[in-house]
Every structure is written in C-alpha cells, then in structure tokens.
C-alpha cells in the first residue's frame, strides 16, 4: 500500500472546508497546516458537524473522524488546526 500523501490530504481537507463554508471568502483564503479552525476560519460548531459528516463520507471507517473528536473537549476541537486533522488522517491511513 502506498504511503498516504500529506499534500493530497491537505488539499482534500481544504476543499471540504471550503464546501462546508460555502462563502466567497472561503474560496480565496489560504488554508494550510497551521490554519486554525477557530481563530483563522471561525467555523461555527454546526459547521464542524458538517465537516465531520464530509470527512466521514470521504474517509469512512478507516479514519472515524467523529470518534476521534468525541474524545476531545469542545474547546480543544474548536482549537484544532488543519494540520492536526491531516496528521490524524495520515496516521489512520498508514
């Protein structure tokens, strides 16, 4: 099995975020590993739900994104960076 490609995963996650937000500014904003969901993107909790749903659809059982989030306090979830999400996906797919 090939090593999961971090850059590809980042691109996928960034695309899912842009879909969830669905606003013009999201198309233009830079989304990188250090981008914070809360401080930089200001996602609402309901948008987190929508992102979790899309992650679940895209990566399914292998990643079990919701179970991962459920082990964290809500402020930790909100404080996540895109990089931490990418790391998690890489870890699960390896």
């Amino acid at each position, binding site marked *: 099995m090939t090593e999961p490609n971090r850059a590809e995963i980042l691109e996928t996650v960034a695309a899912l975020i842009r879909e969830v937000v669905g606003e013009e500014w999201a198309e233009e904003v830079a989304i990188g590993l250090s981008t914070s969901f809360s401080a930089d993107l*200001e*996602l*609402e*909790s*309901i948008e*987190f*739900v*929508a992102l*979790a*749903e899309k992650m679940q659809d895209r990566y399914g059982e292998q990643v079990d994104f*919701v*179970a991962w*989030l*459920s082990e*964290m*306090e*809500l*402020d930790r*979830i*909100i404080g996540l960076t895109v990089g931490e999400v990418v790391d998690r996906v890489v870890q699960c797919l390896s």
Partner: protein
Amino acid sequence: MPELSRDGRTLHVQAQGSGDPVLLLHGYLVGSMATWYFTAAPLLARTRRAITYDLRGHGRSSRPALHYRVADHLEDLHAVREWAEAETADLVGHSFGGLIALHEALERPASVRRLVLVETPLPPTSMTGIDEFLSLSPQEMLQSLPGALEAEVRAGGRRAKRFYESITRLVGHTSLIDDLRAETDVPDERLASLSLPTLLIYAHESPCLSTGERLAEVLPDARLLTLEGGHYLPVESPVELARTIADFLDG
C-alpha cells in the same frame, strides 16, 4: 449532508453507532445538533444508535416562517423516527427539545422506552427571565449567555455575525417566539399517566428548576438530579451530562 426532505422542507439528520435507538433533541435559538453531536451522541453511540437532528429553523434544517408549535415539531420528530426506523426509542431533550420529547412520550408512550429531560421548562413561559430574554436584541442575547457560549462567539468576528443573523431571522422573521409563548401547560392528571422511567436533569442555577421539581413529584417513575451550572448544561458540563445520561439509559 444527510437530510430528509418533506413538503419542500429539509431536516438535517445524523446517526452514529448501531443498536437500540436514542434520539437527542436540542433547544431553541442557540441550539443545533452540535449540542449533542460531539459529546453525548458519540458516547451513547458506543452501545446504541444515537440520532441527532436540527429542529426546524435551526442549524442546517430549513427555516419556515410559520409553524413552530410543539405539534409541528412532533411532525418532524415522527419523520426522523421513520427515517431512523426507531419505532421504540429512548428520547433525550434539552430545554425546548425536552418539551418536544415529553409531548412525544405523552402521545406515544408505547414507543418510548426511557425519557431524559435536561433543563426543560413546562410551560416554556414559566422559565425565569424568559420574557426579558426574548425581548433582548441579538447583541444583548449574546451578552447574556454564559461564558462558555459567549466565548464561542467572539465579538465582531464571523461567528458573532452568523449568530446575530440566525437569531435575527428566527426572532424577526418566523412565528417561533409567538408560538413559544402560546404553548400551554400539561395538566398534572395527564403527566401522572406517564409511567415510563424518566430522568430529570436540572442545573443548580436553573431558571426552570420549579418544573424539574414538579415533574419529579407528579411523574410516576421519575428522578431529579441537579448538576453544577446553568441552563446550558450541554455546553457547560458536556462530559458529566453525557455520562449521566448514558448511565441512566444503560441502567
């Protein structure tokens, strides 16, 4: 986004886990399925199918201009139950969500195994300070919310803006508030007919503790538990609340 469509409207729904179904209903205005989605739902999903959805007007469900009576919410709940194939289920509700759950249990007791009511006021207008709260501007409403919620909505930022917009739309452009004020009480004799096991979880600083105490007395098989915090227990004490609910449903 998993959704149900009916009569030109959509309901945003989500199910986690597998097993016996439990439906979790959120409260008004500041609530959405996010109230339960990251805390109680995944915990319960370890042993059950935990179903959350956005009430009409909230989250990503559609927002009709009219029809926010309990009876209208019950129609949506029935649609969600059908989608989830939850003919018999446990029901958990926070605040107005608890009111919907209570009415469902009263109307269809054979279809509800256990009931958990968190900070539920009956009738809704009996909640201390409700009149004052409902007459606040969205800005003032935000400021009156407990720290945990207010921190979520940093002033001047995108979340604050979206919060104001959604509150303004709900309060200003739907019948939600009028319908809320019109909800009537349920007489004690009717409450006394609800014999299914019920857990009443209220907060030490609850604005509707009198409802908790009344229900504890009138419902034949109910227990009252109070936790540290205020009306927004699912946000203020998410982990303790989730565990308390899971213990009761498993017990």
